[in-house]
């Protein structure tokens, strides 16, 4: 009835997720740069639909940086 996620976020899992999150964000930026850099504005219009996802992933990147700074 109530959600029970099938994992416990252990420290090693958190590290892996935050690293992979950074990788996927960099990959997305590369794709956007390669495919859409020279495209006209109307062909780039649909990219705005991806903003919510990338906003949350960007938030995770900021959290990863915060954790890194706090650890050092």
């Amino acid at each position: 009835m109530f959600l029970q996620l099938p994992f416990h976020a252990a420290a090693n899992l958190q590290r892996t997720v935050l690293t992979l999150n950074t990788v996927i964000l960099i990959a997305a930026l590369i794709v956007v740069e390669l495919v859409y850099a020279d495209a006209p504005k109307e062909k780039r219009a649909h990219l705005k639909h991806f903003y919510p996802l990338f906003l949350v992933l960007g938030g995770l990147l900021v959290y990863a940086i915060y954790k890194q700074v706090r650890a050092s």
Partner: protein
Amino acid sequence: MATTVKKRTTSTKAKTKASSAKKVTKRQASKPVRRQPKKSLTYSTKAWIAAYVVAAIVVPQVTLLWRPLVGVYATVAALAALLILALRSEQARRLAIVAAILPVTLLVSLSLPQPDAFSQAGEFYSTVLLLVIMCNYTFSFHEPLDLSVLRKQYWLVLPLMVVIGEVLGALGYGALHSTAYIFHGVPTYLVAIGAVIFAVAEELLFRGLIQQHASKIVHPMVAAALAAAAYTTVYVAHGTILPAVFALLSGTVLSTIYYFKQNLVLTTTANAVMKLSYLGLLATFVLR
């Protein structure tokens, strides 16, 4: 006489036509023109897209259950797969983006510290709500949301939803009361408030976004099945198959309600009442 009546009917028809044409023109003037998809998809492509999206939702969840570290990689791979689908197919773009909410939410849940099950569920549903609201905003930026088909008999259907929710809650209690209660130590009123918020988040995502956008690509019944499948996978848990079986039942009922009425108030009411009834029965007979 008959000719006069005919003439009148024709003139009334013409007037109605003219006024509706005016309305259409007004509406067209107020709304930006919606771009039509370049080409319609074949049945096999639609089936492939539906299977692709279901796999991208199911595989990470099941892999996380089997081995969490592999599940993390599967979640990221599923997210990448959905983003690629969204970039490549114009018709499947919105469905792929809303389906990607689940892997992104899993990534957030995996990254943040979780002291107990209630905060884990709270983080999960907060992220879902945040993403759903943002997606709804970006999707409806150039076009108003479709109005509900339910115009009359609202107050007749809403009590029916309460009854359906209570029946589902009682069935859920019968099936799940022997499984461990995960929110021990959290005050029941807080869980009750949480249950209503969880119901809102679930309905906005599974019915309001996934089912709605899937029904623009595949047949609405297939879209309902897809939404029910996605809803079930979230409830796959360790130890027992009962939560997933019950989620399949309740997900099918809620998706069917949405298929017939396209109204989130109704499905949210049924879902919230279901959760509250289960909690009430549990608090009365088990947690005393």
